[in-house]
């Protein structure tokens, strides 16, 4: 596979994941805020903003946050920007995608580009995000069932799960951590309702109940979202997916170039596999920062080994 194509597929995977994560947080919060007192709703919006952007947000009301996180083109991590970047990357590698994948993504892009916070506020604003989420779920299914699960698909998976691990870590940090610099420092302790919302942000409420019953316990919620091996939105699941993808990309690359990526992936897996024991002490924020940093190192190593390598050196 061409190195440039791998690059585009990797970023396509990342942007689609980012779009889905953004749409999910906004849909959930727009739906749940109706049950909250105004001051609690404002705290929820601050958490959502902190989870999704480093940019300053004009006001902590539903429409302002939604505008910044969804429609503002100057915010490069807004939902519409993520969809637009995902589609740009897909267009670059159009010949590598199935017609179904390309047309589905293109339709999502075309269907959302004309919208803004005013146009979606006319109707139920949450329905715009639910629809986008459903379209993205369908895209996931179409991708799974029409694309060959070869190297290109592995790069999509790699991008998706590196992005998901980082986004999940950031979200969990806001609830569990002594939050990292740059993120809103003065958020109050989460309440019962906030823990419920956190599970919904991660589509985890029902799976969590099956495992631990509906008794919401922050320690168990943390354990589930970090370490459950079978839940697709747990950090551990993403880490395992990263390791799996890395084992299958660049099959013809010499062992010397593969070694560094595989070593880093092994270390990340080990830190999640043994993380539960280490976390008994309670230093969850360091742990989450460690996951994010290791994902960045893997990203750099993949680029150095397979995408932006020095061609002269391999001749």
């Amino acid at each position, binding site marked *: 596979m061409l190195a440039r194509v791998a690059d585009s597929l990797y970023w396509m995977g990342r942007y689609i994941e980012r779009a889905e994560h953004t749409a999910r947080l906004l849909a959930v919060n727009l739906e749940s805020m109706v049950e909250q007192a105004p001051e609690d709703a404002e705290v929820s919006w601050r958490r959502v903003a902190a989870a999704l952007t480093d940019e300053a947000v004009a006001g902590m009301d539903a429409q302002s946050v939604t505008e910044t996180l969804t429609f503002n083109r100057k915010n490069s991590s807004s939902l519409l920007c993520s969809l637009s970047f995902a589609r740009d990357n897909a*267009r670059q590698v159009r010949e590598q995608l199935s017609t179904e994948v390309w047309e589905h993504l293109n339709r999502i892009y075309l269907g959302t580009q004309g919208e803004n916070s005013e146009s979606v506020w006319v109707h139920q604003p949450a329905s715009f995000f639910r629809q986008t989420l459903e379209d993205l779920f369908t895209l996931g299914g179409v991708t799974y069932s029409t694309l060959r699960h070869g190297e290109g698909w592995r790069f999509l998976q790699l991008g998706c799960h590196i992005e998901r691990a980082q986004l999940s870590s950031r979200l969990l940090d806001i609830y569990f951590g002594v939050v990292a610099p740059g993120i809103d420092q003065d958020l109050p302790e989460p309440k019962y309702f906030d823990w419920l919302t956190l599970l919904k942000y991660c589509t985890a409420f029902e799976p969590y109940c099956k495992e631990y019953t509906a008794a919401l316990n922050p320690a168990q919620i943390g354990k589930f979202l970090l370490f459950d091996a079978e839940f697709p939105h747990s950090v551990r699941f993403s880490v395992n997916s990263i390791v799996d993808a890395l084992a299958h990309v660049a099959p013809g690359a010499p062992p010397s170039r593969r070694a560094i990526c595989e070593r880093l992936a092994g270390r990340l897996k080990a830190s999640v596999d043994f993380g539960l024991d280490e976390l008994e002490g309670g230093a969850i924020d360091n742990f989450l920062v460690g996951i994010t940093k290791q994902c960045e190192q893997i990203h750099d190593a993949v680029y150095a080994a397979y995408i932006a390598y020095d061609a002269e050196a391999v001749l």
Partner: protein
Amino acid sequence: MRGPPYTNYDLGLAYDEMFARDGSIRPPYRALDGRLRTLPAGELARRQNACEQSFLHQGITFTVYSDAQATERIIPTDLLPRIIAADEWDRVERGLKQRIAALNLFLRDIYNEGLVLKDNIVPRAMILGSKHYRREMRGLAVPHGSYVNVCGTDLVRREDGAFVVLEDNLRVPSGVSYMLANREVVRRAFPNVFRSAGVLPIENYPNELLATLKSLAPFQEDVSIAVLTPGVFNAAFFEHAFLARRMGVELVEGRDLLVNDNVVYARTTSGLKRIDVIYRRIDDDFIDPLIFREDSALGVPGLFNAYRAGNVILANALGTGVADDKAIYAYVPRLIKYYLSEEPILDNVETFLCREPKSLDHVLANLDKLVVKAVGESGGYGMLVGPHASAKERAEFADKLKADPENYIAQPTIQLSTAPTFVDGAIEARHVDLRPFILHGEETKIVPGGLTRVALRKGSLVVNSSQGGGSKDTWVLSK
């Protein structure tokens, strides 16, 4: 006055593809006519809309550079097919095969012995002075003597109904993906007419292109082929991606390739992969910054030397533009006689070379009747359509002509034939041309049909997509 659904259909001076002079329906159009008469009101508009939605979702768009607002637009497509009878196509096909054979012989000649120049068939200065003549190509052997492997020849129908050649596109002709995309949507819009009319298939074009490219590297077992594109911002990017996908070969950009020791490699995740044949969709000027334009970021440094060394095949070969120059065009009938000792099967449009003083005088005196074209331009740029220009525009153009006559040719305005087109809810007559695609390698292949371009503005004779043109599916009927 014609009855519904043709109440808006005006026959002009031009030959009409559907209606004979006496108002009867020409035989190839009878099946379509039967359907159009029975379609419920609004149904045509619904189907047209479905076509356009399909193009939008597929991302079949082109880029307009003069428009800073929206760079990506759908190419307008018309769902009424343009239909050609079997015997007419037969003549066109023979004529095109004859023409591509002569043009390839001409290119081989001027880059080698130069007999055609020694025999004074074509002025030496015109060839050596052409900006598309590539000195670097002299003495270089190309597989099967085939310089032009993919050719798009623009044909028009004269008032008398004869197909004539308007121009040859021998460099990087585009449009074949629209031909195939139009077929897919129109076949869906008129499934029954399509079946009953007996339309010849064109879907094998990508296979034929692949076979042509493979035939250029006949000694290799496992030949590695790539389509070279300028990238996603190029107007024809959709087509480049489409052809790569349908052929099952790699689509590469200049930055994916590198040359080492005169061998071309693509950078893959696993390492470097050798490339043997490149179907390049980048102009000569941009292909290698070491030899041609050094500011080109699209090309591959060292590619030309790899080509000269015989380690990679480029299709089309470099330097083919010298033969599709609008001035050389006037000599093609003579070239057919010179190389093949045959009479041309397809005529040229009558052409005045402004480099000849007598012709220049004639052109200047008849500017209001002629179309004047700059020799090195394409895409409808740098031309004057005399009958549609204002007196001021003609005067300004006359000055340009006098200043640089060698750069211009003139042709009488041809009333391109008209064909039924669905415009603003009604079926109207619009002018069309035809661009068939000719493949030339070990063999010569033409898929039956081509891209019919249509001038969507009423009365307009300019069919280029950059100038408000659209396209149509083209049906060639079986015998």
